[in-house]
């Protein structure tokens, strides 16, 4: 899945000459936390977050001394070195960028112009969809030796039961000789399949041992 498929196209923006007051109004009105700052040709020149605004605001402990701060132009407080993405980036690349730079939103550029925006929330929502957690399914975890063909073998056992697979995740076990396969399968009755998998000597993580899941 690529960024283009999950980004928002309808973007709230301001110009460097707009004021803090303008930004506060938009943040409240649209319930958002980031505003890309663009120039007349839609090139991204900065970004302003709700935190930047807070940093620029006078402390509540000092009354009335700086009441004209609202008229400050955004060019004075915006982050100028903006990290941006391309519409063709993979979703997981974008996730890595969020993690690496500890940012909350990624403006997307094409041909030097702002065309979309992806937020942390969009990304999390996408990950929920990718794991299939929003669709009715049973969840089975299978511990398999870390070698070629294991996924195919397990999938073949599932296929024989005529059960549709909603999603698959493969991740390393703590013991590097193994991997964990996580299947979401579209059935309320996985008992037959679990019996098949156990008969084929797979180690299943499913709540069948009182008090703890091995």
């Amino acid at each position: 899945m690529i960024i283009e498929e999950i980004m928002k196209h309808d973007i709230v923006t301001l110009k460097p000459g707009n004021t803090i007051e303008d930004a506060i109004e938009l943040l409240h009105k649209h319930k958002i936390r980031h505003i890309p700052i663009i120039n007349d040709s839609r090139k991204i020149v900065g970004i302003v977050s709700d935190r930047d605004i807070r940093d620029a605001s006078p402390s509540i402990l000092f009354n009335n001394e700086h009441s004209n701060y609202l008229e400050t132009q955004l060019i004075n407080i915006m982050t100028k070195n903006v990290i941006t993405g391309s519409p063709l980036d993979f979703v997981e690349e974008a996730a890595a960028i969020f993690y690496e730079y500890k940012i909350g939103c990624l403006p997307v550029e094409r041909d030097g112009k702002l065309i979309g925006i992806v937020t942390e929330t969009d990304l999390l929502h996408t990950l929920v969809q990718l794991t299939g957690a929003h669709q009715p399914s049973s969840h089975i975890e299978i511990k398999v030796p870390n070698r070629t063909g294991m996924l195919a073998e397990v999938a073949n056992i599932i296929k024989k039961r005529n059960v549709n697979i909603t999603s698959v995740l493969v991740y390393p076990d703590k013991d590097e000789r193994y991997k964990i396969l996580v299947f979401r399968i579209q059935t309320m009755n996985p008992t037959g399949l679990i019996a098949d998998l156990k008969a084929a000597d797979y180690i299943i993580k499913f709540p069948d041992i009182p008090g703890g899941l091995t």
Partner: protein
Amino acid sequence: MSSDSIFIYSDQFTRYHFGNNHPFNQIRVKLTFDLLSSIDALSPNQIVKPRIATDTELALIHDPNYIKAVKDAGSGILPEERALNYGLGTEDTPIFQGMHDASALLVGATLTAVDYVMGGKAPHALSLGGGLHHGFRGKASGFCIYNDSAVAIKYIQQHYNARILYVDTDAHHGDGVQWSFYDDPNVCTLSIHETGRYLFPGTGNVTERGSGKGYGYCFNIPVDAFTEDESWLHAYSTAFHEIVEYFRPDVILTQNGVDSHYYDPLTHLSATMKIYREIPKLAHKLAHEYCEGRWIAVGGGGYDIWRVVPRAWSFIWLEMTDQKQKGYGEIPEKWRRLWQEKAPITLPDTWDDPENLYPSIPRKLEITEKNANTVLNALYPIRNYRK
């Protein structure tokens, strides 16, 4: 108002049948009917035949294209590819001859119950053929084709303009009903179920609280595997009391899936018959305290159809009709003789489970503590609102 509660029954319920190796089997309703008859707890004037739901009624919840697909599937003329798009012809909901009529009858049964209770003809009504809470607007799921409970709730809104509290104690999350009324502030849903970490359908997290105007009118209490009676009942009693006081419904609809029992092959909650005495007892009491008695109870899951379901469902009727004393001690020999031959396992001989039904469960303290926390978390908006 007549003082008699009604029991919706037809021997045609068993036409909703996915084949002999499928865990969902409506013979359960007949087993319960026979068990109640064997203790003289059902009189002929309490038994009401169900009607069939009309297409218009089904369309209160379901997409007309889906209804058409179910009809076509039941006549054997729906192409496989299209069937699969509607969740039909899967392991969970295989296609069978006449599936539309069989499913519409279960919905009609629950609507019949609704009309008696909301029309003031009976204080309470029991529709054990219903409780198919996984049915979606345009998709069959989790053994459910049409969602009788969701249709009934829409029907109550339309015909009786009442506020409904839906309480779902099936071991699986009541997803179909929840999503049907997720943004509706006049329907409050409470589902207590085994956590969806592993179990179908995977949803029903505490954080699912409704959306838009319906925010705060959806409650989910996902309890841990191996919860056992005490912790389960604590969750049920605490949540039901606080939610009914907060929402103040006109009528209570309870979904009585009985698949949380230790014997149930699909789930892992380790409950016993004890919770099935307590579930209807509290619903009954709160219906009188808040809704002038209006209480509609439907069936639901339950996959140990021989040992668990007949006893557990009988308790609902005995509670509803104040005949609880008939549900103690030994199960009549008459009923056991009638069914033992057809059962692959020994039928129970007492109404209660034996002590030490299962080996004691390690980490009980942690599980109990975790569940209590989940309850707190689920009820947070109410407690916050009361402050």
